[in-house]
């Protein structure tokens, strides 16, 4: 009887620790990763030949990054590692992948999805001007390419990532024009008891902020973004400060993000249902506390629950242990309990973090009619409202069918969040009621010729 076939998608903190657990149990999992080198987003590695040392790349996380990369290096010969590979579909216990234009099918007995997360975006007038990026994009440019997205970058949004990326930019020597946080400072103070579930993370956040202030970077909280302004490219970011006064900061780039949302498309295609979580304003894939989603599917890391890198490492290992137990292979019950306790503490911290840096839904809901909401298809907020009010679209998939929201290359990743809020507010319904854009294959765009090459003898 051959070994059960385990396939892991994602080689970030969750995927690496899951792979580690399977290897320790004597299995040889397939590890599929879009990136060329393991590490995920947070521990993303620069291309070969880049000279920045880990301490410069990862700052306070350098130790964790090194340990994670070392853990993966130790696994390399004992896993079937497939880097530069996109998992574009899953059906009938087979994962469909593509690498360098060559398609492959990977059958599995157990599938562990560690697909990570992406920024939540709220458009603002002028956001389609050249020079406006997401926080994640700004971070990738820095880590993976050693460039900044601008000479003088304004950071806008909320959440810990806002301060982290601004800090990383300043530390790397890029110009940081300002850090503009939509969350009022008082919320952070009120959330402190909950945040102290993980005091080290609180300390880190304070450290990033302190370093930015020491460098003279203006930090404003409780702001309301007004517009990205410029002729042909971003030249300034206009906002109202906490007291309501109009302000303007000159910049040549904006990096924006309002927390993270999980990449759930593969889980959805694999049959997982999504449930709306109100405190986080996220549609989360349904799974149990160990990451079991049924039918041989396991979920871990930010792709299941936004929790950050440390939580992802624990969740990856936990999901693997749950899977091993389900496969009838030995699992350490005490360790499972320990990991679950860790994750519960992480979850408490996460709740407090949401309360400290809430998603400013009113900024999304209140977008002026003429602001482009769906960049790919050029659909304005007004058109989405009209889909609801005049064309009877009661939920986002219907709105998509009628006005093309989410029909572009980003497949709803950039516009989906704001789209939900604009539609719900226009209809006067709760956000949960308008649903979320349904996932469809391919999970990311797939080249037609590559697909064609996989079916060479198709008769006419």
């Amino acid at each position, binding site marked *: 009887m051959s070994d059960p076939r385990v396939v892991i998608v994602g080689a970030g903190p969750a995927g690496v620790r899951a792979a580690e657990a399977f290897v320790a149990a004597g299995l040889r999992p397939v590890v599929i990763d879009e990136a060329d080198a393991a590490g995920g987003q947070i521990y993303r590695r620069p291309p070969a030949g880049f000279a920045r040392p880990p301490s410069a790349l990862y700052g306070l996380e350098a130790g964790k990054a090194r340990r994670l990369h070392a853990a993966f290096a130790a696994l390399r010969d004992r896993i079937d590692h497939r880097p530069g590979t996109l998992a574009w579909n899953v059906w009938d216990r087979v994962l469909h992948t593509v690498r360098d234009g060559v*398609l492959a099918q990977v059958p599995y007995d157990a599938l562990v999805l560690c697909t990570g997360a992406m920024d939540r975006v709220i458009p603002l007038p002028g956001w389609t001007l050249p020079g406006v990026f997401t926080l994640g994009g700004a971070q990738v440019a820095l880590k993976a390419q050693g460039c900044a997205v601008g000479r003088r970058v304004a950071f806008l949004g909320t959440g810990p990532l806002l301060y982290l990326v601004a800090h990383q930019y300043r530390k790397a020597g890029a110009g940081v024009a300002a850090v503009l946080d939509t969350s009022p400072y008082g919320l952070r103070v009120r959330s402190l008891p909950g945040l102290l579930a993980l005091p080290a993370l609180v300390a880190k956040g304070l450290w990033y902020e302190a370093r930015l202030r020491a460098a003279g970077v203006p930090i404003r909280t409780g702001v309301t973004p007004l517009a990205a302004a410029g002729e042909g490219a971003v030249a300034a970011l206009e906002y109202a400060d906490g007291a309501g006064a109009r302000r303007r900061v000159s910049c040549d780039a904006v990096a924006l993000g309002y927390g993270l949302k999980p990449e759930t498309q593969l889980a959805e295609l694999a049959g997982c249902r999504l449930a709306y979580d109100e405190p986080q304003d996220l549609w989360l894939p349904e799974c149990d506390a160990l990451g079991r989603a049924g039918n041989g599917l396991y979920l871990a890391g930010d792709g299941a629950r936004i929790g950050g890198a440390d939580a992802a490492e624990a969740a990856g290992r936990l999901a693997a242990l749950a899977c091993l137990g389900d496969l009838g292979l030995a699992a350490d019950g005490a360790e499972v309990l320990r990991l679950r306790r860790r994750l519960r503490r992480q979850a408490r911290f996460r709740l407090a973090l949401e309360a400290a840096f809430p998603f400013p839904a009113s900024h999304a809901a209140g977008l002026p009619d003429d602001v482009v909401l769906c960049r790919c298809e050029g659909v304005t907020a007004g058109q989405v409202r009209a889909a609801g009010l005049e064309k009877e679209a*009661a939920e986002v998939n219907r709105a998509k069918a009628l006005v093309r929201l989410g029909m572009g290359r980003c*497949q709803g990743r950039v516009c989906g969040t704001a789209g939900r809020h604009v539609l719900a507010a226009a209809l006067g319904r709760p956000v949960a009621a308008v649903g979320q854009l349904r996932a469809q*294959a391919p999970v990311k*765009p797939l080249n*037609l010729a590559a697909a*064609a*090459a996989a*079916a060479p003898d*198709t008769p006419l």
Partner: protein
Amino acid sequence: MGGGLAGCSAALHLAGRGIPTVLLEKGQVGAQASGVNFGGVRQQGRHLAEVPLALRSRALWARMAELVGEDLEFRVTGHLRLARHAEDMALLERYAADVAALGLPLQLLGGNALRERFPWLSPAIPGASFCASDGQANPRLAGPAFGRAARRAGADVREGEEAVAVERDGRGFRTVTAAGLELRSRVLLNTAGAWGNRIAERFGEKAAMRTIAPQMVVTEPAPHVVQPVLGIVGGAIYLRQIERGNVIFGTGDGIADIATTRHHVLPANTLAGAAIACHLVPHLAPLQIIRVWTGIEGETEDFIPVIGPSGTTPGLFHAYGFSGHGFQLGPVVGLILSELVAEGRTESPIAPFAIGRFGSPGSR
């Protein structure tokens, strides 16, 4: 019963005649086959029995803005039906002669003419038949637009209402919905698409139907080069490019479960479709596929719909089983149903679509 394109069109036409009409749709209007089909608006290539209906429907498509208040993005791009080999050319010639007699002019093109007029087409294609009056539209807009127009005309269009029981007694039809709504009517129209045969069977009619799930693929936008809608003898693929630039093509049959309404695309069909698309229109090769989808459709044994009065029950009329090619016919089917209800007859020749052709009720 059933708010697809045929049902919504019937509601619109009936309301226009002042006949009180309730449309029950268990989900959202136009969301099933009517909304997820390929979007071809064609007369060419149809079973000969359908051609007179398609010609009449084409006249409605020309007046769509007047009929429902918007044009449904209908564009008269022509339909090019490709031959795979010489035998197919003979078939196309015979078909062109047959439909010319019915009033549909087609233009046959040999290899050279094809290459000159459509240089993007693979040189491996020996010839084709071109129908200049055919085109394409946006299926997602159609059902909802007809539904809204029907409401404006006075029809009571109810979404989220699933009929769970329907029967006929001395006083007419009694329909009960899952929410407990009870309706009495003199006439019942079965426009329930893939679910149509279930309603027919309740009234003792023989009408087996297979559930199919035609699959579609759409690419990112690209410069608009492919003008006509493409079809091919044998039906291996259908392909069109919209003004926005996206290329849509369909091939193969996915998985559909009529009981749960869940449907799923089979990856193998997506790949097969991509192979044929690249073979026929080589310059599409660099494009990215950004989405696939399918839906639930009903296919009859002889691949043409059931249209007409019930064989068992007075006041009951059927219009379902469009077997994957009902989009162009939807508007006229609604008109025909309104004629049958109001006048007891229709000018369109619907005898070939009679439900009785599958055997009389009770026979095996």
